[in-house]
């Protein structure tokens, strides 16, 4: 294996692999991805994987997500079938107070060109007859959908490898040295030198930051997801909290818990989640749950992506975000532009790590 690279990406999840792929489209040589386990061992392998825009706030963040969702059809053409479905998204509500909020949201989104419809009870039930008839209405947006995260990361990886990107797995990065014009990256299996270094360690970003004496304020937020037996296709839309996959399984999950890196599942949350699902879609009461798993969200302190250069250290970049599945095509594209051209076609200043205090606490 080579020891010297133009660019090293630490982390081969959906974010790191998308950056590797997009970068390799324009620059074939000298890219290495290092992962402490294997791509999909992290958050990208334990996610709901909606490509979701609608009802993210504020509207500029929704807009950012929309640009990424719009890239999905082209992405599938380039890297292959990732089981992307633009189903449209439905967020049901059950009381009139929520209708007011929904109308305000729709108004705000209109300004940035995202169309949200506020549906009446009848309209909502007509679109998705399986919804609880007690629903008061729903917000609807046609841009939402979902994807198979396993295929997505795998296809990014295959396409990147085809373009010459190397992957080294079970290879944890333990030390990073900054020298003028280069980085020396020490890992379990060896030492590598590179000019550009990208930190895409997801929920482990804080630890990675420490290796370069920078605070990357990403926290852990556990989510537990239930998987039903395969059911005949009956859910037409991606509904907030649940979706039906290609193979008929329904994935259900809403929870957020501060439990560090503990990936256990608990019956408390599992039962609450199941009850919620039955409230939304009563016929799920008959479905058998065959599996539950949990994933640890990479959650930046203020909830928004951390993207771009790290001020004060030349050629060092970070990409850490929640909603990384939705955002991966856009993040891959923009990070490539930033690295190769020094600027991005869509401004990302808002997402710079400089909005936080960089001193390690």
């Amino acid at each position, binding site marked *: 294996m080579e020891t010297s690279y133009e660019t090293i990406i630490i982390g081969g999840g959906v974010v790191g692999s998308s950056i590797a792929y997009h970068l390799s489209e324009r620059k074939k040589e000298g890219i290495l991805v290092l992962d402490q386990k294997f791509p999909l061992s992290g958050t990208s392998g334990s996610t709901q994987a909606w490509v979701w825009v609608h009802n993210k706030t504020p509207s500029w963040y929704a807009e950012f997500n929309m640009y990424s969702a719009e890239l999905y059809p082209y992405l599938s053409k380039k890297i292959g079938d990732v089981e992307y479905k633009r189903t449209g998204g439905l967020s049901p509500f059950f009381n009139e107070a929520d209708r007011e909020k929904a109308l305000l949201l729709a108004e705000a989104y209109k300004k940035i060109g995202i169309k949200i419809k506020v549906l009446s009870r009848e309209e909502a039930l007509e679109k998705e007859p399986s919804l609880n008839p007690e629903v008061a209405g729903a917000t609807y947006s046609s841009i939402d959908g979902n994807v198979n995260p396993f295929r997505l990361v795998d296809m990014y990886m295959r396409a990147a490898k085809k373009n010459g990107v190397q992957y080294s797995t079970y290879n944890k990065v333990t030390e990073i040295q900054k020298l003028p014009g280069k980085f020396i990256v020490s890992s379990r299996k060896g030492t590598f030198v590179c000019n550009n270094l990208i930190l895409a360690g997801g929920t482990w970003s804080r630890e990675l930051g420490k290796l370069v004496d920078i605070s990357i304020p990403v926290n852990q937020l556990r989510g537990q997801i239930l998987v039903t037996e395969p059911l005949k296709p009956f859910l037409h839309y991606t509904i907030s909290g649940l979706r039906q996959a290609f193979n008929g399984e329904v994935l259900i999950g809403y929870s957020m818990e501060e439990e560090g890196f*503990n990936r*256990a*599942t*608990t*019956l*408390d949350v*599992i*039962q609450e989640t199941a009850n919620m699902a039955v409230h939304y879609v009563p016929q799920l009461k008959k479905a058998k749950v065959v599996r*539950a798993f949990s994933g640890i969200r990479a959650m930046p302190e203020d909830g928004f992506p951390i993207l771009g250069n790290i001020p004060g250290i030349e050629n060092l970049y970070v990409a850490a975000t929640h909603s990384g599945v939705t955002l991966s095509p856009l993040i891959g594209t923009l990070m490539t532009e930033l690295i190769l051209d020094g600027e991005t076609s869509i401004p990302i200043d808002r997402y710079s790590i400089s909005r936080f205090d960089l001193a390690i606490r």
Partner: protein
Amino acid sequence: METDVLIIGAGPSGLTAALETASRGLDVTIVEESFSMGGQFIQQTQLLQSLPSSYQPMRGFELAGLLTKQVEDYSIRCLLGHRVIGFYKDGSVGISDEINVFPLKAKKIIVATGAAENALAFPKWTLPGVMTIGAVQTLINRDFVLPGKHAVILGSSDFAMDVALQLSELGVQIKGIIEKTPSLTARDAEKVEEVRKKGIPVYVNSSIKEARGIGKVEEIDIVHGEQILTVSVDVVCIDGGRSPILDVFYQLGCSFSYQKELGGWIPQYNKSLQTDREDVFLAGNAAGVSSQGVLLTTGMIAGVYVSESLGAISKQEADIETMSLWRELEIMETKLYPDAWKARMQHVENFEHPVLKDQFIS
């Protein structure tokens, strides 16, 4: 609901663990997903020779009956048709009767969830008629249903020899035992001889290239050296070995290490059959796939140490009792699976004196 000892799984090791703990006055609850106790012994008609000294040689289903009877003589709570489906945040065990879920607080848990068969895949292996060898045994011995008339067996363990003999006694034509390595993997020379006497063809260095059939398996291609043999069959028995069932350990947050000879990933444990979660013990195939006698003994050892951890006997008594149990275990295991015994010792050693850090998945 509360209990001193919760035993998950009423197979042979779960039952011996239950007897060891209940006989010392502890309050014991068994949860078992099927509606009968005895686990895989129920469908085993072959004579079990290598059992702990406290048991006469007998057939598997007879032993299942005996253990069930003994358990029923104690006031052990047996939740049949119930499953452990998860754990609550406060550590209570979530038990389902398939309609409701209720919590149970246990001071100690013994996980005796056994092993599951591994599949061996080849093109069209999902055709009906292709099944694991354990499923075949269950069909003939428990359900009294013949799976077909013309069978091949893929794999050649002792278990495969047992089932080959049982099938041919029932008039099923065994058209071949197919083994990918250069020799049969069965250790029991007598049984292998019996199989040979029956004239069952054995293909070593061989594999199944593909199965064919419309709606069910009708023929298979065997790759035998340079040759391809096409054989018409209606049953393919897959003997792919077994691996411990680990779901409960994952949920409990136990850590694991890999021991190929014991069936793959197994929870870490010490000589007391205690995992790295102080309140969780294990027994049977879950502690490493082995022979019937070993399963019983591991259940007994776990039972003794759980009794000790709850103060029902002294440490000294426990050590004395288990010393002879470990010795028996060694004799039984080295007789049939010497490599498994070595792996087991290595496994315990790794846990008690870890050399490598970070070698375990969890």
